Structure formats: structure tokens, C-alpha cells
């Protein structure tokens, strides 16, 4: 049938052009590969993600009291062997030096232990704080150090609270208790902490943690970050190719071959139909290759095959329709580049493709995402990766199909009018 001859000719031209192959496969894999590399592809084989060590300078101004030097204990804690993969620690003498280091960016954070750290920790009433100066361009490293420090000093906070509570309660009942007794009570809370035994971990055993049903725990934490990124890239470049393939009709108009086609005994509907079939086949092929290759390259488990196919189908229809409509509004091939680049980038951005993975995005952005077909595609793929069933996916995939067919119909109408 001529409609397939037309599609075949378009596919032949498409696959002969290296630019198309780069945009179909090269670009999404390059970007995802880069990010894969960024987030763990080059680990040394261990399970945990090989994050950069946080560079920490410590200024210990603390003065020992009563044989205790909690500041020094804190310094030792941060310099422990089991934290050496996480932290690079250097002790410096002055606060100014540490401040300068952080300000110039040569060190990430500075921990300033105040002069009265030990004495305040052991006495009632007075509060004390350790200051953590950070490079303002950083977020994760300072957060890690803060978390570690908090874990450590919570022991002393607990001790102080113990003495404060006991004092308050005794005092409320007109009973007195001596300072040494309070100190002993504080020690009881810390569980002989200063002697070096700090297996005192209140954090772990109260909570049983598990993954949501249907979500597979990844072998490697970094791998789970790649899957949504790959999904975003796949969506972006499938939409790109949908429009890029559809532009062939404009190119043929300029080349004169479209007019020539109209002089042959070939129905106009066949000519347009052939174009659309080539768009569809291209996108199916592209999506399939990306899904399969990413599974082997990045160990991404997309989900149940039937569900994956269902979601992929929705993506292909939406991208085909979007591309056909976009191209129907373009006058000549010179406009194609910027329209492809500009419109697809902006709609992709609004659809959430470039902010996928950033935690705690405000809900208003999620709403904005859903004004774009790319946003619905992203939602569908996230649900697929999370193990949702076909029933759960009815809504997002249904929207994709509906939107895709609507765009396609509109695009067809415009093209028919143009070439009537």
C-alpha cells in the first residue's frame, strides 16, 4: 500500500541522517550517562554512593573542666576512622583562620566549639551552641556535618535536660539535690560517655523502615536516582523526535517533492497518513531502544512489561500528536530549529522534566507540570517505575492518549487545509 511506501521512504531518510540518530539515541544516553557517572557510575564497587568528602576545619576553644574536655572528645569523634570516608578533618587554632578558609571556599565547613562548651554542658541553666560555618554554595555537606554533630551533642543535651528536669522537679517539691549528685545523674544519662564508650545510640531500634509495596529496593542508592532522570530524558527526546520527524512534510513542500507527490495518482490522505505512520514508527522504535538499552546500561528496572508497554504507548501517541500539531503551525524549515529547541525546552521545563529528582518541590509546581503533556508522561513513568498497575495508570496514560489524539486531529486538519 502506498501509505506504507510513503512511511518507508520517510524512515529511510530519517535513519540516513546522523543528526537524527544523535538526537534519538546519542543525546538522551549521553546526558543520562553523564548523570549516571555523576551519581555513582564510577564507584569503587561498594554499595554506598561515593560522595565527595566534606572538608571540615575545627576550632576547639573549649576549656576542660573537672577532668572533662568535651570539646576534645567531639574533635576525636569527627576524626574517627569510620567517618574518614565522609569527612576530611583539620584542626586549626583560630576562628579567623577557619572563617577565612570557608569564605574562600578552600574548606567546606568550620566547626567552632565555644570556650564554655564543657562547663555549660555540665551545668544547669545555661544553654550552649556549637557554631557551624558553611560555604553558602553548599547544601549536602554542611547538612551531613550538622547531622553528625547533632547526634553527638544530643547526648550532652540529654544530660543537661536530665539535670534540669531533676532540679526542677526536686525544687517544685521543696527538695534539694547537690551539684555533684546532679553531675552523677548526668553521667548516668550519658552512660559513661566520656570514657569513650559511646555505643549509646538512641536512634536506631525504635523504627522499622521499609519500602512502599511494589517499590523495589535498588542494589545501589545511586541507581534509583538514574531511573527518573532517564525517564525525563526519554520523554524529552521522544517529544523532540516526534516534532523533528513531522517536519518532513514541510521540508518536502520546500523541496518540491510534495507538489510532485500531488501530481501522482496517490490520495492526499495517503500522503499525510504515510507521514504520520513514519512519526509513530520512529517513536516506537526510539522508545523501545531507550527502554531496553537503559535497562542493560544503567540497570534500570522499568517495571512489568505489559505496564511498560502501556505507558510507552501513551508516550508515543502524545509525542506524535504534539509533534504533528507543532509542525502544522510552522511555515518553513528555517523556523524548525528554534521552535524545536525553544518550545520543547520550555514545555519540558514546565512539565517538570528538568526538576525531576529535586526533593520537596512545592505543590504549585506539580500542578503546573500537569498542564503539559510531558508532565503527564513523567507522572505515568514515575508510577510505572514505582510498580503501579495498569489500573492505576489509566488516568495518566488515558490523558496522554486523549491529548495525543486531539493534537493529531488538529494537526491533520491544519495540514489538510494548508495543502488543499
Amino acid at each position, binding site marked *: 500500500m*502506498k501509505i506504507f*511506501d*510513503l512511511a518507508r*521512504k520517510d524512515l*529511510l*531518510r530519517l535513519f*540516513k*541522517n546522523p543528526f537524527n540518530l544523535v538526537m534519538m539515541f546519542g543525546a538522551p544516553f549521553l546526558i543520562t550517562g553523564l548523570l549516571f557517572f555523576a551519581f555513582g557510575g564510577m564507584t569503587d564497587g561498594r554499595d554506598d554512593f561515593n560522595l565527595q568528602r566534606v572538608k571540615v576545619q575545627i576550632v576547639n576553644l573549649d576549656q576542660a573542666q573537672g577532668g572533662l574536655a568535651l570539646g576534645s572528645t567531639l574533635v576525636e569523634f569527627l576524626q574517627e576512622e569510620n567517618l574518614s570516608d565522609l569527612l576530611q578533618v583539620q584542626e586549626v587554632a583560630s576562628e579567623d583562620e577557619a572563617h577565612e578558609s570557608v569564605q574562600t571556599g578552600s574548606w567546606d565547613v568550620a566547626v567552632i566549639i565555644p570556650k564554655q562548651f564543657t562547663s555549660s554542658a555540665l551545668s544547669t541553666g545555661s544553654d550552649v551552641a556549637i557554631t557551624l560555618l558553611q560555604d553558602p554554595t553548599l547544601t549536602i555537606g554542611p547538612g551531613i556535618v550538622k547531622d553528625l554533630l547533632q547526634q553527638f551533642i544530643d547526648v550532652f543535651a540529654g544530660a543537661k535536660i536530665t539535670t534540669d528536669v531533676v532540679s526542677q522537679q526536686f525544687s517544685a517539691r521543696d527538695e534539694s539535690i547537690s551539684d555533684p549528685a546532679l553531675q552523677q545523674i548526668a553521667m548516668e544519662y550519658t552512660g559513661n560517655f566520656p570514657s569513650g564508650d559511646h555505643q549509646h545510640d538512641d536512634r536506631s531500634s525504635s523504627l522499622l523502615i521499609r519500602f512502599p509495596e511494589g517499590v523495589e529496593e535498588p542494589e545501589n542508592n545511586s541507581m534509583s536516582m538514574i531511573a527518573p532522570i532517564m525517564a525525563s530524558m526519554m520523554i524529552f527526546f521522544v517529544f523532540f523526535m516526534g516534532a523533528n520527524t513531522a517536519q518532513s512534510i514541510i521540508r518536502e513542500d520546500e*523541496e*518540491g*517533492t510534495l*507538489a*510532485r*507527490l*500531488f*501530481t*501522482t*495518482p*496517490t490520495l492526499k490522505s495517503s500522503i499525510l497518513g504515510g507521514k504520520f505512520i513514519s512519526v509513530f514508527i520512529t517513536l516506537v522504535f526510539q522508545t523501545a531502544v531507550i527502554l531496553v538499552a537503559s535497562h542493560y546500561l544503567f540497570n534500570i528496572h522499568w517495571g512489568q512489561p505489559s505496564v511498560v508497554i502501556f505507558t510507552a504507548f501513551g508516550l508515543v501517541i502524545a509525542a506524535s500528536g504534539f509533534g504533528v500539531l507543532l509542525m502544522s503551525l510552522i511555515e518553513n524549515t528555517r523556523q524548525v530549529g528554534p521552535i524545536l529547541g525553544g518550545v520543547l525546552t520550555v514545555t519540558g521545563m514546565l512539565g517538570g522534566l528538568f526538576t525531576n529528582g529535586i526533593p520537596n518541590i512545592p505543590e504549585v509546581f506539580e500542578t503546573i507540570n500537569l498542564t503539559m503533556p510531558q508532565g503527564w508522561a513523567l507522572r505515568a513513568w514515575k508510577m510505572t517505575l514505582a510498580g503501579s498497575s495498569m489500573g492505576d495508570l489509566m488516568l495518566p496514560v488515558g490523558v496522554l492518549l486523549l491529548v495525543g489524539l486531539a493534537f493529531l486531529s488538529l494537526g491533520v486538519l491544519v495540514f489538510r487545509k494548508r495543502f488543499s
Partner: protein
Amino acid sequence: MDQNKKAIQVKDLYKSFDEVEAVKGVSFDIKKDEIFSLLGPNGAGKSTTISVISTLLEPTKGDAFVMGHSVIKEPMAVKKTIGVVPQEIALYPDLSARENLNFWGKMYGLRNTELKTRLDEVLEIIGLTDRQNDRVDTYSGGMKRRINIGIALLHKPEVIIMDEPTVGIDPQSRRNILDNVKALNREGMTVLYTTHYMEEAQEISDRIAIMDRGEIIASGTHDELVKLVGEQDRIDLILNTVSSQLSDLWRKIEGVHKISSHNGTVTLLVEDSNLLLPKLFEITNQVDIRITSVEIFEPNLETVFLHLTGRTLRN
């Protein structure tokens, strides 16, 4: 003329684009196995007329029939009988010659063995068998024109429509094309040929229609057309300077019928060049202008056009 012996019949054709009337009441017939040329300058309406006959455009008024089929009512039937060679190179530059022909053959309904055989034949006809697997964008202009023609021949159409097929190519390629046209006609193909080159129309055509500003101003065989200008001679003069005063003075000479200027060449239609040439020279001397070149032509299509319109074909 018997309807059955007419390959193409154009009846009172009009085509307007907004307020511009590109074709105004054009009528002509083309016999089967005839080479018929539409001759006229750029903008005369030749391509528009061709586009209507090729079913690319619908006429505003009137109709055209190809092998008895109306272009308005039976466009598919018309498409099956015609092969079109458009003015621009309408090929896929990133495909090879063979791939191009293969695709277009399918568009004309050829399949399988028939298509393959015909592909080889056409490649032989256009002389591109050796380079059939090279991409078209690596070809010279002449080679591209040959494939452009080859596509139109694939399905052995009864009528071939060629819209200025020799524009912008070298003389040798042009020669090849003209020879091919004659060869195709000898094999029984009716040819509708448009051109603004008088020599081409003169060489290959059985009949010629001269078109200007959307209308057919004369048609017939070459001899019939030339007779329109009678015994008038055409003189082309190149002067050392442009002078409208000189043209005015020449017009007053008895026997000078038409004067036209284009790109420094003054063309005159005169009664008898032998008698009038000395008078022309005399007046030129009087106004202190020098004639640097003189050419005298026997009446031809250029003369006919000048006689009918007051302009040359190249204006």
C-alpha cells in the same frame, strides 16, 4: 478535431490568485503524439497553466481535459496518464537515484518485477546506470535534471508535461534533454513543453502557442506563426550609448514598424533591412551616436513576439 485524437484540451481556462489574474481565458488543443510548446517570457502564465493541467491547481473558471478526463472531475484518472517534470529539481537529495526512482515508481503504482525492470530501463534511458547508487546531492545539475525527467517516464505515461526542463544547465545537457524529448515523442508520447527559449520551441515543436500576460496571443506551426510578421526583418543593434531621442527619430522612418530595447540591444522590425539600414545609420550619425554591432535576422518566433507585443521574449 476528433475528441478521441486530442491528448489535451484546454477550454477557456481562467486562474486568479486573489486579485491577480494569472491565466485569462486560455484555450488550446494538443493532438496525440504531438510536441506542443507553450512559449512566453517569465510571468506569462505558462507554469500556472501547466499546474492546472497537472491537477496541482484548480481553475477559477473553465476546464482542461487530459485523454478525455476532466482535471476538475477526474483528477486521479488524469494523474495516471501524465508524467510531470517540474521546473525545480523535485528529488530527495539524501537518497540515491535508484532509491528516488524506486519510490516514485511505487507512487505511480508500479510494483515488484515490473518496477525493477522499468527502473533499469529508465536508468539506461537517462544514462545514469553507473551512478544509480550515489546520493542525488552528489550529482551535477545536468544529472539531476535527467533524474527529474526519468521519474516522469517510469509509468510510461501517455502525456508528459515538462515545465522549462532546461533552465540553468549546460549546453550539452540541454542538447541531451532536447534529443530525449524527440525520442520520447517518436515512441508515441504526447509532450506539452513550456519554455522561454525560442530556439527550443522552434527545434522540437510540432505546434507552438505564444503566451503573454495570461493569454494565448498566437498559436500554430512555426511557419504559420512566422507568416504573421510577413516579410519583416529583424535588426538587432548595439549602440555605444542609450538614447530615447534616437528611438523617436527612428520611429518616424517609413518602414520601421516596431522598436524595442533590452540590455543595451535595440531590436527593430522593419520592412526591408537593405533599404532601411543606411537611413538608420545616417540618423545615428546626426545625433553623434555610434553603432557598435549590427545583426539582421530572418523572421522567427522572436520577431513574431516582438510584432505582437512590442517586446522581446527576453524582456
